[in-house]
């Protein structure tokens, strides 16, 4: 109807302007072209956002830390058959911490992707000029930082309460980085599966439990039957724990662990996991685009 009210008059005026040739209206500025130089900033931006989101779940982080403590104390008492075997704690603690890193890396990767798909922010992330794998890597960094803070506080409490001695050695840093590289590569495999199948909790749980019992955190891998030991050696973190114990608890140098082949095996293992994880994630992402699954939950 053409009944004239003040509102419709304003709308009619708008239509007049809209009806004008597009070139007669204000021309938009061309966007600033973003190149590869912006990628590190985009990666750090994702890390920053991940930290902000983690901080918004403060209560959850605290609960996670308490759970982590109770499980560890329970396991240590179980291993000592009701007693606290202080001599066995550092080795078990090192393995347990690595397992905790694996736990958060795997579960957070699937949880984050699923949540972002549900809320539609995942599709918005795909509108970035940077590769999505790189953005996901930024999110993994934030996860690594958050986990390190939890692990650091937890270890500090154990050191103060139980008098556990865990030597700090610089040589542990490259071993830790390599272990995390393999671990997050594995996380990318799970992330890729999340993009396609959405509900991958049972797969993530299976892997987390396998890691707890088979990665040598509490039971040395060489005591396992051969067939099971082969599986255990292929899991992420197993080789990292072996090398980490040698370097941190036995005081071996990096040269020594390189010479005995354990560091070489860790390097190879981590590179393969990272590359395979990245390739699988990329493949799943393409499939998700092809099948229109990115925004679906």
């Amino acid at each position: 109807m053409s009944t004239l009210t003040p509102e419709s008059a304003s709308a009619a005026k708008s239509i007049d302007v809209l009806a004008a040739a597009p070139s007669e209206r204000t021309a938009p500025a061309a966007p600033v072209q973003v190149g590869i130089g912006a990628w590190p900033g985009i990666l750090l931006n994702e890390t920053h956002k991940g930290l902000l989101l983690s901080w918004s779940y403060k209560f959850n982080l605290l609960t996670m830390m308490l759970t982590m403590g109770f499980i560890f104390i329970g396991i240590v008492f179980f291993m000592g058959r009701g007693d606290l075997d202080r001599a066995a704690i550092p080795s078990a603690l090192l393995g347990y911490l690595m397992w905790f890193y694996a736990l958060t890396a795997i579960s957070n990767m699937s949880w984050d992707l699923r949540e972002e798909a549900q809320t539609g922010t995942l599709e918005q992330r795909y509108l970035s000029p940077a590769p999505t794998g790189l953005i996901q890597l930024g999110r993994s960094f934030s996860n690594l930082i958050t986990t390190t803070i939890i692990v650091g506080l937890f270890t500090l409490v154990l050191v103060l309460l139980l008098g556990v001695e865990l030597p700090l050695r610089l040589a542990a840093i490259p071993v830790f980085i390599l272990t995390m590289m393999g671990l997050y590569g594995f996380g990318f495999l799970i992330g890729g599966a999340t993009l396609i199948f959405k509900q991958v909790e049972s797969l993530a749980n299976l892997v987390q439990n396998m890691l707890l019992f088979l990665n040598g955190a509490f039971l040395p891998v060489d005591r396992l039957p051969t067939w099971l030991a082969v599986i255990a050696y292929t899991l992420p973190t197993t080789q990292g724990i072996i090398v980490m114990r040698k370097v941190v608890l036995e005081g071996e140098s990096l040269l020594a662990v390189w010479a005995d082949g354990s560091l070489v095996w860790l390097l190879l293992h981590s590179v393969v996991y990272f590359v395979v994880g990245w390739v699988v994630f990329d493949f799943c992402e393409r499939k998700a685009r092809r099948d229109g699954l990115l925004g679906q939950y």
Partner: protein
Amino acid sequence: MTPAIEIQNLSKIYRKRSGIPTKAVEQLNLSIAPGEVIGLLGANGAGKTTTIKMICGLVEPTAGHVALNGYDVARQRSIAVQQIGAVLEGTRNIYWRLSAWQNLLYFGRLKGQRGSALKQRAQALLSELELWDRRHEPVRDFSRGMQQKVAIACALVADPPIVLLDEPTLGLDVQAARTVKEWIRELALHRGKTVVLTTHQLDMAQELCQRVAIMRQGRLIAEEPISTLLDLLRNEQYELRVEGHLPQDALQLSPQLAQTPIANALTITHDNGHSIVSCPASSQEALYDLLSAVQQTGMSLISVQRAEPKLEDVFVHLMESDLMESARAEGEKRPARLGKNTERKEAA
């Protein structure tokens, strides 16, 4: 001039787990000029969202190409996505646990923007949204309309020349929808953005868009300027609104009116205690005769206005026409198939 959006032979076929292919978009061709505001209309499942997602590069086409300001989305994705900002259908699009300020900075940096220029732009957008004072509050504490405005601001923070808005008022109350609509108008009028708008609110499309593309079952069934589409159903008529109930034959009894050519073309409908008399607008003289006849009934005249067709009527008309055409085509195919089967049987 390079089109802002160039869509060529775009098709998307989804292969479901059952193996049955579903055609979501079929041979779509569309060219959108820079600064144009175009409405993409259609019923649910018409292929609008799939089209928007293919424009964004979020869904890979089965065939065809999309270019944004000349950049091919498939081959030059990194540059192509810098041309667009999008608010997608039915999702939050932003982080509700973060504040409006954090969201704007995050999405700006995600698009490669940085430094003081980004902060100035974020500040300007939040000020225009009247959210500057609440910029540090989590978005989850905002009203739905405000959240949607933050989502639109995030889509604009890198200042893209093309804005894709998929059902931007879906689920909003009247007030919030109006606020968002004003913003879209602002984008179109004062910022020169190319806007692609999908909506079920056809009055909004009629008000904001210069041109609409109507889709049905993945196909484009019409693509015209709004005025051309309205002309399809433009039937020059006057409408007289009268207080009270006017019987169908009330005006036929008037001897003065009975002599005029419109006597047999009058229709009377009733609406909320009012009677609406419609008559062809062919003759001013006949209109005055009609007014006299109404006066003689002793009923109060409320308004006289020229009836304009609505986009909604045109939309329904086009959908029904296409449906009938499809049914006819299907009907023609069926006997042909039956005929072949019969021939085969006879041959056997």
